[in-house]
């Protein structure tokens, strides 16, 4: 499979009054055409900032992509001028966001919002874009779509609004759909519906997907590959089945232990990882997970581990081999 996106050394900082926030610390990853990549990590570890950096949607000031490359179809997204990146946004790369309640404009109708990209990128006229909007709403299983396209967002439930967001994202047949925690703000039953919908659409359309979540459980049935992020860095990257079968980073282990299991006894307590993620402003040397890591040793406090290949298509940034023995 051909590589669709190649990210190298992507680094994004926020220049705030309290200091420089190292939100994304030189991350590397690849994404193949048609592949689904999960990005997992606790809240605040730089998942959103890393994808917003690709879309060049980091609010500036205070933020800025300070380094790195992101090659997409032979062009570097980071170096593109504004006009170029705008021709990619919503067209080749689409994005849907966490909170469907606030991500749609309250004063514009669904049609007005979905049709914008169609008219902008595909040059449709009003009649064509209207027809296509109805098709798209049908595609994301919005009932009676033709009667609802002139409704306003507040007339839709949260789940339905997220479907509208997805319809908007798919409108120009993107090669890459980025979904930033698209189900986090929704009820559990709705979460499953939206996840299923995206899985089905992905099969029908065949685009690549980056799916961000703080819940490893959701990723299992959805992704081909997973990047685990901690404190602005990728600490483990693997095919999804390897990550579950053979997790190598202490943080990944911690995340896996905090997934509710259906087969577990009712009374077994989930064990969330103790402690809090570090302050991204003054990052001490060494492994940023060390204060919370039960495997930590002397070396972890002074030297930062880099991603190393530990198995086929499986990289980990850790000084310790959690399967036994030292490296």
């Amino acid at each position: 499979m051909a590589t669709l996106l190649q990210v190298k050394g992507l680094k994004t900082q926020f220049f705030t009054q309290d200091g420089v926030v190292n939100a994304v610390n030189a991350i590397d990853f690849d994404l193949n055409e048609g592949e689904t990549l999960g990005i997992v990590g606790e809240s605040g570890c730089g998942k959103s900032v890393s994808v917003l950096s690709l879309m060049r949607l980091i609010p500036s000031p205070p933020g800025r992509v300070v380094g790195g490359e992101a090659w997409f179809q032979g062009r570097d997204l980071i170096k593109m001028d504004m006009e170029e990146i705008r021709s990619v946004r919503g067209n080749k790369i689409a994005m849907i966001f966490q909170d469907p309640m606030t991500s749609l404009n309250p004063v514009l109708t669904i049609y007005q919002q979905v049709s914008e990209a169609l008219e902008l990128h595909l040059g449709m006229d009003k009649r064509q874009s209207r027809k296509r909007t109805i098709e798209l709403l049908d595609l994301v299983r919005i009932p009676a779509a033709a009667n609802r396209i002139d409704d306003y967002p507040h007339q839709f439930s949260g789940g339905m609004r997220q479907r509208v967001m997805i319809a908007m994202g798919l409108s120009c047949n993107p090669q890459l759909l980025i979904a930033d925690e698209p189900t986090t703000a929704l009820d559990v039953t709705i979460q499953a519906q939206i996840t299923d919908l995206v899985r089905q659409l992905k099969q029908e359309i065949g685009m690549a997907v980056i799916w961000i979540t703080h819940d490893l459980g959701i990723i299992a049935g959805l992704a081909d590959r997973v990047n685990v992020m901690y404190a602005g860095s990728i600490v483990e990257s693997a095919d999804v089945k390897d990550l579950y079968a053979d997790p190598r980073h202490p943080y990944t282990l911690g995340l896996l232990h905090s997934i509710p299991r259906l087969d577990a006894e009712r009374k077994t307590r989930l064990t969330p990882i103790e402690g809090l993620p570090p302050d991204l402003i003054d990052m001490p040397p060494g492994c940023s997970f060390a204060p919370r890591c039960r495997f930590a040793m002397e070396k972890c406090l002074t030297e930062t581990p880099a991603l190393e290949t530990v198995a086929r298509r499986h990289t980990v940034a850790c000084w310790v081999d959690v399967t036994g023995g030292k490296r």
Partner: protein
Amino acid sequence: MGRYIIRRLLLLIPVLFFISVITFALAHAVPGGPFDREKPLPPEVIANLEKYYGLDQPVWKQYVDYVTDIAFRFDFGPSYRSRGRSVNDIFADHLPVSAQLGLAAIVIALVIGLPLGILSALKQNTLWDYLGMGLAIFGVSVPAIVLGPILILIFALALHWFPVAGWGTPAKMVMPAFALGLRESAIIARLTRASMLQVIREDYIRTARAKGLSERVVMVRHALKNAFIPVATILGPMFAALLTGTFIVEQIFAIPGMGKYFITSITNRDYPVVMGTILLYAVFLVLANLAVDLTYAFLDPRIRYT
């Protein structure tokens, strides 16, 4: 919507009743009367005058007469001071003047205030922003009583662009309308800026950018309408206040408007004029606020009146 408007208009009745009782009671509670003079009038003359104007009646009867005249004949009664003129005559003469001036001031306030606020927000923390907000602070902090004479000094006496004072030609309207409107434009500019700054941080603006829309489309189509919603709130009272006249500017520019007349009536204890103006102001205020609420519904589809 139609029923909503009718309900709101019916609400005017209790409001006006309440206001009329209070102003009437206050007018009668304040010491001194309309016929007090430096050199007191002979008691017989005062008695005659009071009889003529019905002031010898019990207060409740005076009130009932006053209100029924207004309600059924739209007659605000005679002026105590301007011999032979009714309050209706006075309104007819002076209100249109104030309304014209007020309208011109509102137009100036919007034409300056809205773009200034938007520009300051979009160019936040740049020279444009500082310039715009500097101007806004100037506008808010310099009262008309200072601004009026400054305008006269510069644009009438020094540059001879406009006549010093007076009323009746468009040229005469420019300076007083500016003196009135500049302060309001400053208020609008600051509110627009604040509102705009908040809106451009909203998630749906990011969504709009993520579609690849140009910054101009994002601002005009996605931000402006949302940003204008809070601004519409202050326009109602602003309208009502400007339309019913403003004493200071009318005084400075010798404009025969209602504001000037209103203040003179208070010092003269010309109660029918005072009460009539207050009632009219209340009507304007209610109507202006109704207009604002209808504007809301137009701007924000989440608001529907039934």
